[in-house]
């Protein structure tokens, strides 16, 4: 135990709790699902353990081994619930030896080392074809990543209450439909891959849309997404969808150290220090892309996105960016997906190549689809500002501010709003 006196500092305990949540949530859920075969029970147990930590750590101090403490607590809570509900499915007596607990806890105590396959099983279970696609994504973000419901809702562009109801329903279905906590045989793995790659990419994106992480990025989420994608690429070698997705992630992730400045403010692509990009990862991604032939479906979507990202990553200076190529990739992607978010990205590329007015024209008609999405008014405000239409720009940037998550994005919007209101 650390010194209890130090434990009374609320900020320290909060930081320790947040760190423990990030480091252990999904491992704990995966381990408990593996043991008790009930996702709902597992999640409740882990939630109970964190709640207990929030109550006791301020008094007794943060334990030396928070993961082990949480696992022990979570497991006891699950057993308590099983006893009280008398729905215990296993035949063994309910005797948990401390020795055993410590052995399993040791596995969760090794950040960065081998991650048990439990987590991969959990991803594949959450992506079972008997679940609705939106539910698969939501469950994975909630269970595997431990995102809060409001963050899952934000990532999927739906209202918090709707997401809450969806998660409750999906968890009930996962628990009752007879879905197994296993990695399916290769011939049945295929049908889950679209959902799995969607989830992995959302998980990756979550790392770059921090809502509450001080200092901005949750690089660990992006790392986690890349790790899981590599793991799957190892399990299923030669799949175009996984290859292209991995390349896409590596390209975007290679800029992680330059996205925010020392003060935590957002640094836009043209202003980033390109010498600090991870060029080994860029090279690896370009090599990976070289092995992916043009194709169809999800794989082709990832390939086109990765090709667009590669244009940025391989331009030595911002002015060397081939914006026409980037815009063409997005146009192809938009034709395939009809996605309003792709249209938004295309508008930005077109504006860079052909001027802000050309970009603005592409934003017409997106408002209904992206009603709660701060990026649309943010981009529109930016382009209006560049077009010299400051008053209109200010109105859009204000709207974006009201929708954007707190942190670097809001700070950036505030800065641009000030620019829009400065005469000149």
């Amino acid at each position, binding site marked *: 135990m650390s010194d209890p006196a130090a434990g009374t500092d609320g900020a320290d305990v909060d930081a320790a709790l947040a760190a423990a949540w990030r480091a252990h949530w999904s491992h704990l859920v995966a381990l408990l699902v593996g043991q008790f075969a009930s996702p709902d029970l597992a999640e409740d147990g882990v939630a109970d353990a964190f709640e207990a930590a929030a109550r006791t750590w301020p008094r007794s101090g943060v334990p030396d081994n928070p993961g082990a403490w949480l696992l022990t607590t979570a497991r006891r809570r699950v057993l308590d619930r099983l006893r009280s509900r008398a*729905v215990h*499915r296993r035949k063994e007596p309910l005797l948990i030896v401390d020795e055993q607990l410590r052995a399993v806890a040791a596995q969760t105590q090794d950040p960065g080392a081998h991650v048990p396959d439990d987590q991969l099983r959990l991803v594949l279970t959450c992506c*079972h074809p008997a679940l609705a696609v939106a539910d698969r994504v939501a469950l994975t973000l909630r269970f595997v990543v431990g995102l809060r419901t409001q963050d899952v809702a934000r990532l999927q562009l739906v209202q918090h209450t709707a997401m809450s109801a969806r998660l409750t329903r999906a968890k009930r279905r996962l628990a009752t*439909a*007879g*879905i*197994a906590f296993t990695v*399916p045989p290769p011939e*049945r793995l295929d049908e889950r891959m679209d959902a799995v790659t969607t989830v992995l990419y959302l998980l990756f994106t979550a790392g770059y849309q921090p809502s509450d992480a001080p200092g901005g990025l949750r690089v660990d989420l992006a790392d986690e997404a890349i790790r899981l994608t590599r793991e799957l690429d190892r399990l299923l070698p030669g799949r175009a969808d996984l290859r292209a997705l991995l390349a896409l992630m590596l390209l975007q992730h290679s800029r992680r150290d330059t996205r925010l400045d020392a003060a935590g403010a957002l640094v836009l692509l043209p202003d980033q220090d390109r010498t600090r990009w991870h060029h080994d990862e860029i090279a690896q991604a370009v090599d990976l892309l070289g092995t992916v032939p043009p194709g169809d479906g999800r794989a082709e979507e990832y390939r086109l996105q990765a090709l667009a990202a590669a244009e940025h990553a391989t331009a030595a200076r911002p002015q060397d960016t081939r914006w026409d190529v980037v815009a063409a990739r997005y146009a192809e992607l938009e034709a395939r997906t009809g996605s309003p978010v792709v249209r938004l990205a295309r508008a930005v590329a077109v504006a860079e190549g052909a001027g802000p007015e050309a970009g603005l024209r592409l934003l017409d008609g997106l408002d209904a689809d992206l009603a709660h999405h701060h990026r649309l008014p943010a981009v529109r405000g930016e382009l209006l500002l560049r077009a010299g239409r400051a008053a209109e720009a200010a109105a859009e940037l204000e709207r974006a501010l009201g929708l954007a998550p707190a942190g670097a994005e809001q700070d950036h919007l505030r800065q641009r709003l000030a620019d829009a209101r400065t005469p000149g």
Partner: protein
Amino acid sequence: MRFVVLVYQDERVWLEADDAARERWTAQHAAFDAGLRDAGVDLVATEVLHGVDAATTFRRRGDDVTLTDGPFAPTAEQLGGLYVLDAPDLDAVTGTLGLLPEYTLEVRPVAAL
């Protein structure tokens, strides 16, 4: 765990089928039985039902009881039979259902009470 598989089909398909079609279905059912064994799924029980012409629907509202001839819901596809299976998980069940003729199948886990 146990699953009930409810078998729905358009009865006219069965009534209007020729001998070749019936033979094909019989072979598919035999393949399904073998597939269950291969997948480690136990066939606990199975029943084939008479058509909805033979159905009686019983409704009670308070003390009022009404009997009506015909099915509960007049849809094109009607319940024609059921299986009770004991299987390790849902995948083991759905992995074998493809061997059956083209029915619409509803899989419902049995609640452990």
